[in-house]
């Protein structure tokens, strides 16, 4: 996202070039753009519009659909289950995003610090669960966290007490989902931060060191401000994706016990594809979209206070 401003100017530059230069490559451009544009129209643009419309209908999968205006949204506003789903999603986001950023930044700094060898190896290790199937990751956690699983078994052996039934407990189910998500999720951000840290000119940190700045001071006064664009970028994308959390909660706990881990997308899936209320499910999707949009916009507004773009 940080590339956006530069990009829009680049796009504008191409546009002026087009005006300046010859009339353009209309014919060739039509051919080159056709596959991607037709695909995007059919599989992205059309569904977006359709989903907005379906949200105003009572739309079962089989049978006729009827226009009901804002009724779906009203139902959502008054639905206790949907409130729980929103609350669960926010709990997940508030636990997951800060932990993800702190751990990925911490490890990126640690791996990049002086004297560490085999950096590529460590980066690869921490990145592996980010690419293995989420369902496979969840299956492992399901094995480890179940009664008599690895953790319970270790606790019985070492301390003589049973571990809580993590996945069957209303208290522990959400932390378990967060734990799985962190384990598999921070690899991308760690690599983003690694790239940013590699780009910090050593001349700056060396100059500060000669001026007597210690490691901690150098990190907080020089390195950290220089990589704020990457941190901003990572926070924005991580927030967006964490509001959409589905697979971890669905596979690990099925949204339960009760509805302890029913996130907004789990709720959407249940309403849409178990109860076949397509209109209501579309309304859920738009509420989710609007929440994400508002939070993202606020971040872009707020970034001026803490993100340093001047090199």
């Amino acid at each position, binding site marked *: 996202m940080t590339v956006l401003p530069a990009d829009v100017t680049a796009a504008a530059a191409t546009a002026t070039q087009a005006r300046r230069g010859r009339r353009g490559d209309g014919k060739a451009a039509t051919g080159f753009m056709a596959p991607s544009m037709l695909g995007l129209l059919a599989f992205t643009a059309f569904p977006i519009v359709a989903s907005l419309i379906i949200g105003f209908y009572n739309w079962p999968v089989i049978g006729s659909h009827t226009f009901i205006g804002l009724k779906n949204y009203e139902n959502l506003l008054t639905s206790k289950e949907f409130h729980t789903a929103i609350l669960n999603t926010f709990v997940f986001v508030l636990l997951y995003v800060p932990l993800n950023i702190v751990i990925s930044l911490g490890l990126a700094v640690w791996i990049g610090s002086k004297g560490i060898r085999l950096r590529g190896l460590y980066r690869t290790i921490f990145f592996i669960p980010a690419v293995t199937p989420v369902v*496979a990751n969840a299956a492992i956690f399901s094995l480890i966290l179940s009664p008599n699983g690895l953790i319970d078994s270790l606790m019985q052996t070492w301390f003589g007490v049973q571990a809580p039934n993590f996945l069957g407990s209303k208290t522990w189910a959400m932390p378990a989902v967060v734990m799985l998500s962190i384990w598999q999720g921070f690899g991308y951000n760690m690599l983003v931060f690694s790239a940013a840290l590699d780009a910090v000119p050593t001349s700056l940190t060396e100059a500060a060191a000669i001026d007597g700045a210690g490691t901690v001071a150098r990190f907080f006064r020089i390195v950290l401000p220089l990589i704020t664009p990457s941190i901003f970028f990572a926070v924005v994308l991580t927030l967006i994706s964490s509001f959409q959390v589905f697979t971890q909660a669905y596979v690990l706990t099925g949204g339960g016990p009760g509805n302890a881990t029913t996130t907004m997308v789990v709720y959407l899936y249940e309403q849409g594809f178990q109860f076949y209320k397509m209109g209501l*499910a579309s309304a859920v999707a738009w509420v*989710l979209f609007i929440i994400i949009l508002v939070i993202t916009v606020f971040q872009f507004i707020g970034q001026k206070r803490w993100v340093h773009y001047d090199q």
Partner: protein
Amino acid sequence: MTSETPTFTPTPALGAAAVATTPHRSSAARKVRSRVTSVVSQILLSLVALLFLVPIIWMLLSALKPSAEVFTVPPKLFGSEVKFSNFVEAWNYLPFGRFIVNTLFVAGIGTFITLIASAMSGYAFARLNFKFQGGLFVLYLSTLIVPQEVIVIPMFLVMQRLGWVNSYQALILPWAFTAFGTFLLRQFFLTIPRELEEAAKIDGCGHIRILRSVIIPIAAPALAVLAVFTFLSYWNSFLWPLIIINDTDKMTVPLGLELFLGQQGQRWELLMAAATISMVPTVILVLALQKYLVRGIALSGLGGR
């Protein structure tokens, strides 16, 4: 982090002069201390990495145990026998082998289409001049912020009308035309100097030839990054296949694992063997791409996906 002690004591800012006048002995002592710190730091980091890998290691160990010995107190690294046959059994149990073939097919074709469509539109945005180019590009970018959940419901209804429920094309096509691929390749194509194409142009090459013989060979690393991440996202995709596929014959790997997990009287050792198999292609791809990982991610901004 905790890994480094300050190698420079806070002396007045006299720069090189101060360093030069430091007695030789204490500088050597400092060097030793700094060496010790980095060794300790390296050992600690290795322990953290090992701890991080425990779930994967436990998966491998459990995949090799006899059925009755997956859950034991105290936990054991190995069962009474090491059963490699679990992998064979997992492959045939549910048709897991079939799921693998399905997923390879879907991810392979999907990646191929994505690369072609993205390279073409990326080239158009980077090298051609046409009407509404800037506006169109902004529109492309704006589709990136729409969450997948908004799209899946109408898409399901469309697939139903088309009779594409439980079909390969329903798994492949909806996700093969992403603005993301176009954006990534356009960015990379813009960094290629135009002079390289001038010779080809003078020789009378058309745009297709230029794209194929000049641009694509140079952009191979970017194409590789796009190919790998597209393949992985097809391979790991869960929500959409869960919605559109309920026929066992067409299931992908994640659906198969979920089916495994949901069964009564689970065979955990087989599930872990299947999970191991499902990870193999992804790990191979990451190892193959290791060199490009950091650069590719910085280039594409795939973070948080």
